């Protein structure tokens, strides 16, 4: 069970906002985390604690294909991202690196910044502890579920190629 306080953002949070390209001359997760969300929320890095949850509206993670974006979010301690919708490359990248991403419009609409959410990844249940409301995220397609339970794309590929 994940539990954390909510950082809430609006629509079209792009990957330049999540991690500006000027920091992409390195790829170490801890270095990237230092600048996560910097251009739209200078306080994020100061306030984020392990387990916290990002909630956003539509098209979260639009823009470039930089995997540095979900890596920076994950390394900053965020336990999952909940949005009405995700940009497709960001969604793929997040699944591949093991950052849980959930689509749930109702949870987004009924959650404010600073609320505490509980998330059960095994069944997609989301509970807002501030208003007591409960929601269920869109289930993953079967194939993606398989990918997640294998431990991500690299572990899945190792298994496919008989390397593990």
């Amino acid at each position, binding site marked *: 069970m994940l539990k954390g306080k909510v950082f809430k953002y609006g629509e*079209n949070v792009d990957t*330049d906002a999540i991690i500006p390209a000027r920091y992409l*001359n390195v790829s170490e997760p801890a270095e990237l985390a230092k600048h996560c969300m910097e251009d739209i929320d200078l306080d994020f890095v100061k306030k984020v604690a392990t387990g916290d949850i990002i909630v956003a509206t539509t098209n979260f993670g639009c823009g*470039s294909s930089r*995997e540095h974006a979900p890596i920076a979010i994950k390394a900053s301690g965020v336990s999952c991202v909940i949005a009405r919708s995700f940009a497709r490359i960001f969604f793929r990248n997040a699944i591949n690196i093991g950052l849980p991403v959930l689509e749930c419009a109702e949870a987004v609409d009924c959650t404010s910044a600073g609320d505490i959410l509980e998330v059960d990844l095994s069944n997609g249940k989301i509970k807002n502890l501030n208003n007591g409301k409960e929601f269920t995220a869109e289930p993953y*397609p079967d194939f993606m579920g398989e990918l997640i339970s294998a431990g991500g794309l*690299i572990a899945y*590929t*190792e298994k*496919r190629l008989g390397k593990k």
Partner: protein
Amino acid sequence: MTLIEKILAAHSGKKTLAPGQFVNVRVDMVLSNDITAPIAIKEFKKIGVDKVFDPSKVVMVPDHFTPNKDIAAAEQAKMVREFALEQKINYFEIGKMGIEHVILPESGLVLPGEVVVGADSHTCTYGALGAFSTGMGSTDIAAAMATGDVWMKVPPTIKFVYHGKLGKWIGGKDLILYTIGDIGVDGALYSAMEFHGRAIDELDMDGRFTMANMAIEAGGKAGIFKVDKKTLAYIKNKAKREYTVYEPDADASYANVIEYDVSKIEPQVACPHLPSNTKPVNKLSDVRIDQAVIGSCTNGRLDDLRLAALVLKGRHVNPQVRCIIIPGSQKIYMEALKEGLIETFIKAGAVVSTPTCGPCLGGHMGILAAGEKCISTTNRNFVGRMGSPKSEVYLANPAVAAASAITGYIISPEEIK
């Protein structure tokens, strides 16, 4: 089936495919660059294979922070170079290097009917050649380098039909900005965009590359064109291997059909901070600019430079504007030199750079200070995209960027006397 469905079916051993289906797709080319390859290489090594699936089908291009902008960037480029040489894959060292999405088609590394995946969101550019190409992250590319295939969810296809004849100064950039302005930055989310119509038939290859390039700015998985005489002429002396031309079926099923009459549209400008925030150039008044950038994987091709030169010839860049022109490849640079375009640019007071993605992503070669504004032929105008989070980027075609460089404020080339 739509064009994309045909290509994906052929690459996954299926007779038919429908949107929403998950398939394993054989890839013809796997791409990464100096920013995305380092993570891909690290992940590739974790899989436990020694060699990429086929060195002739893997390519790395150090184009983002190169020629190396600082020590950290140099370390990343070094890692890419060493891996590329060890694996004997396609690799473009400085001197041969150009912007990846310009040089792959130029070198015949992408052909009609192929499937290309790249760790760069603008990989969708090759749809101009009738290929299915799409961007993904480094880990997906690592797996594709190991296996030669990739999992894909078949996207629904939206058909866009552009009726009418294009006006003067109107090109692929205006059509795609107009489209994104209409449908929004997630208007084609998870979907393939298939481009049709008279205006498309008339568009030259460079304009089609521009349009396909920005499909991602509408959230698209791909932006694709049918192969025609112009496509075949483009690849004629470039193709070194067999390829297949696919056509969408007459009864293909589209998620939506969107039609535009483009005969009356004006040059488009996407205002800060979204590519969908578009306006006709004449609706902008007194937007003073500090910089003009002409180049990138969107508009760094020969036709783009010709257009900029047409406007700049015999004129001078406003003394308060920095005009930076970046040919997309060494070949284009050389052609521009032969045609006298480079001389036109330098005489006009512009600076000409070696090929690089540089300023487009706020990397180097033209970073903006707080409060500065730039008109740019690039593809994104997000907060902080070209430098300071307090700077602003306006997206436009090369003629508008060149005209604005002359006056110092955003203006239509039509207004330049």
